[in-house]
């Protein structure tokens, strides 16, 4: 990791001031840091412990951002990005796993039913990702709430803080978004 907390903090500020290339750089750094942390976590292979996405995201924040110098708005930006990157990491993984299970595109092999307990959830992640993209087209904020809650592991209150809305709004949006996504995913047969 080459970026110091100071640099990231500067980038977040630049981004707040409308510098889009700063946003791209933050994205890259956060992506790499989360991936690195996730892999490191995986290497530890502590049985009985699940990989806590929220813990990862919070840890990334502590590692990457100089807390004393960052304003509230920057913090929100950071969490937004982190959740988005976490989503990318998990969905990429899930996709890869799905293909691997099928054993290649040309010759799909029927899956051994007993071996796919977790495959169901894997498929769910991919389907959710696609449905979320549709939701974003209709309602950006609701899509973002799901991203923050589900992929970023943020609580209702944290999500509200990041989006600068009330916890009640987050609750309402979350409820409808879930119903909408559920319907969407069922409709596409996933």
């Amino acid at each position: 990791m080459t970026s110091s907390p100071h640099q990231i903090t500067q980038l977040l500020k630049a981004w707040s001031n409308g510098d889009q290339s700063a946003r791209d750089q933050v994205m890259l750094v956060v992506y790499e840091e989360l991936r690195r942390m996730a892999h490191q976590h995986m290497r530890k292979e502590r049985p009985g412990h699940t990989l806590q996405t929220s813990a990862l995201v919070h840890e990334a924040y502590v590692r990457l951002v100089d807390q004393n110098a960052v304003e509230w708005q920057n913090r929100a930006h950071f969490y937004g990005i982190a959740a988005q990157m976490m989503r990318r990491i998990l969905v990429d993984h899930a996709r890869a796993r799905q293909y691997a299970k099928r054993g290649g595109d040309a010759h799909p092999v029927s899956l051994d039913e007993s071996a796919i307990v977790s495959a169901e959830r894997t498929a769910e992640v991919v389907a959710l990702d696609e449905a979320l993209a549709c939701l974003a087209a209709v309602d950006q904020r609701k899509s973002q709430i799901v991203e923050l809650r589900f992929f970023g592991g943020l609580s209702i209150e944290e999500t509200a803080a990041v989006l600068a809305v009330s916890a009640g709004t987050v609750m309402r949006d979350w409820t409808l978004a879930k119903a909408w996504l559920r319907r969407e995913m069922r409709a596409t047969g996933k």
Partner: protein
Amino acid sequence: MTPERWQQIDQLFHSALECDAEQRDAFLREACKGDESLRREVVSLLGSHEEANSFIRTAAEDIAADLMAGRETQLKRGEYVGHYQVVSLLGQGGMGEVYLAHDVRLGRHVALKRLPAKFTLDAERVHRFKQEARAASALNHPNIVTIHEIGRSNSSHFITTEFIEGDTLRQRIAKVPMTLDEALDVATQIASALTAAHAAGIIHRDIKPENIMLRRDGFIKVLDFGLAKLASDIEPILGAQSLPKALHKTDPGMVMGTVQYMSPEQARGEDTDPRTDIWSLGVLLYELLSGQAPFTGETASHAVVSILEAEPSPLRNHVKAPAELERIVMKALSKKRHERYQEASELERDLKILRLKLDETATLRRVTTNERETKTAASVMTTGEVVQSLPTASIEYIVGEIKRHKTLAIAALLLLLVSVVGLAYFLTSRNIPTKKSIAVLPLKPIDATNRNEVYEIGIADSLIYRLSLMKEFVVRSLNATRKYADLTQDPVAAGQDQQVDYVLASNYQLASGKIRITWQLLNVANGQVEEIHKTENDIGDLFAMQDAVASEVENILLARFVSTSSRLAAKRRTTNEGAYRLYLQGMYLANKRNPTDAQKAVETLEQAVRLDPNYALAWAGLAYALRPVGPVKSNQEAHQRAIEAINKALALDQSLADAYSTLCESQMYYEYDFVSAEQSCKRAIELDPDSSQAHDIYSRYLLSRGRFDQAISEIKTAIDLEPTSLYSQRNLGLELFLARRYSESVVQLKRVVAMDKNFDTAHFWLSTALAMQGNESEAFEWLMKLLALRAVDDETIQAYRTAFQMSGWQGVLRERAERFNKSGEDDIDGAAYYAQTGNKDKAFECLERVYQSRNLWMAYLKVDPRLDALRDDVRFDELVRRVESR
């Protein structure tokens, strides 16, 4: 759907939820006022809401854990991986499962190994693994398995290799024990594979019976080059990065099988090198011969302790093996790397010679009668002695000869030794490339709205890696160049910032599944474009695309630079044999680092550059020889001449590591400019990480800064690179002394004087370290030996004896101080004698003069324990300040 419509739905949905279930229908009918599609939309969402209770209730945590853990299932018969159809499972190990598979395109059988996902998460590491595995395969060596493809079928990485019908060595030895002849044959073939791989810079790191295939026709094939490295970061067993973890793995058999072949350096988690493979081959050969592994234990931890500490029981306890074979195996199994075979080729050669000898004996035996056969059998047992007297290892042979004769011939033999060591040096130095420094910048999108950072960094990374493999280049790391991703960054300015000769800057465009890259090679000095090319590739497989781009760039750069580099390399070395010989002799003398030899070294090296004025290395060597002890009139003159020589060397070859490391000496020992000194030394190491001299000098720099642990680690690297350098060996002793680790210092210095009984300064420091330790009588003994070496007259020796008898080591120090005073010389040692005998004023006067003469030892003022008595004096602080702030 319009935003207004969606807002309507949103409101109705929540209002309906607030109603009691039985009133919902009526409420909606009323609220939608005949808009049937609106009502149905809300009803359907409410329906999903009921189901959605268990849906994405929690965060993605459990999925994340499952996904990341990458649990995998075995492939089944008939399943496809790319264009390979699985036939059967051949085996399974820590590095993945191996299948027999059918290549449907080429209609042949292959062995397919699927790598566990956890090894392949890091694209960079996979990339490196590919390079190394391919490089090994490309050697086309009969004992190295041929790789057909390293590929990826979606997320799963796999390797396909030629399918070898036969057994693994593990399976083979489980069936019937090997005969001596078979074992030697197998070991020789493995050594031959290692020789070729090591020459190409590839280390296997996991030589064990499971990784050796035995073909029916007797050929052996070494599998899985590079794989151990790929796994090492993840699976600590092989990289031994965390041994405790390795030892607590659930499958003890697996761990044990792997641990037994592990070298001491792997067990300690240190870096591996070719000698690591030599160790593992030693373990394997021991096992083939004796039927049991040399290092074992009840548990893996016990086995590791045994590897680190136990001497294996002699082979002769298990099997009737020739003494020479015992020697070969034990040499391969030396705990210390520098005591092992240094190269696989040496081991290979010794094994071959032994086989020849055994064959001769066997032939002899065939033509003899039964009666005589008994005698020859005995001679098999003594073959070792016969072979040992052959010049199997030239240096050992010569050393042996020296021990045998102990006559005036010693001098002649020493010269021979110099030229043998020198020849080895010449042969290796011929391979030292001349390097250009280059920075590869992240790619920039031509269209900023259509960009992909993965390509920008990923391709740059591939290029950096590929260029770093080329001997012609010193490449800046991705970490150094990543910051130039800014679209407005001027590449030449980036190059100046990075202080490189060249910058590789590229633009790219994405369109319909293709990436088009325009890349330029810019000369930083004049800002000119020296090469410009376009490449176009399919994006489909990211890795394949990156590799293709890197290959194209590499080819063009190779064509461009190779001729230049050979021209430069010629300047570095010489075609003049006389000059070369003088250089070797001069460096040998220079490394003795005492005034008499240094004077001779300077003269010899001056002759060398007179014979070939374009001989850059000799110029650097001359500077090096001028440095240590002021062989000429003053330090100032020596310094000026050294700087001139360094400039000559750098003018001929600006990437000569030896010139920079010598420059570091000038800066630290004469200019007392410690900041520049560190930069020079780091540059030297960067230019040639294998330069023992650079590491040696850097360690002395670190020492002067009081960074003892780093210094000692550096000097050990220097010794590892050049184990025969007595000077570095002595420096280790000296550094331990200055780090106040006296007992270790004594042990090391005793080792040095055992290696060279005439090493003046090693005697001096040994005596000093012993005295510091409080071991006065032994200190005195070594002082006497030193004085004998210097052929000091009897009267002086008698004076020291009397002084020691009267008042111990203090008496000796007083005697030395007095004699020093009379001599009128100025030397740091004099100041030390005054300091240690309580004559502070004299000590400071002396130090002042030493400082004025720019003595090199002033660099160590802060750390020398002999000066401790002066440290709380304000004059000392003042002196330190003057040295340090220069």
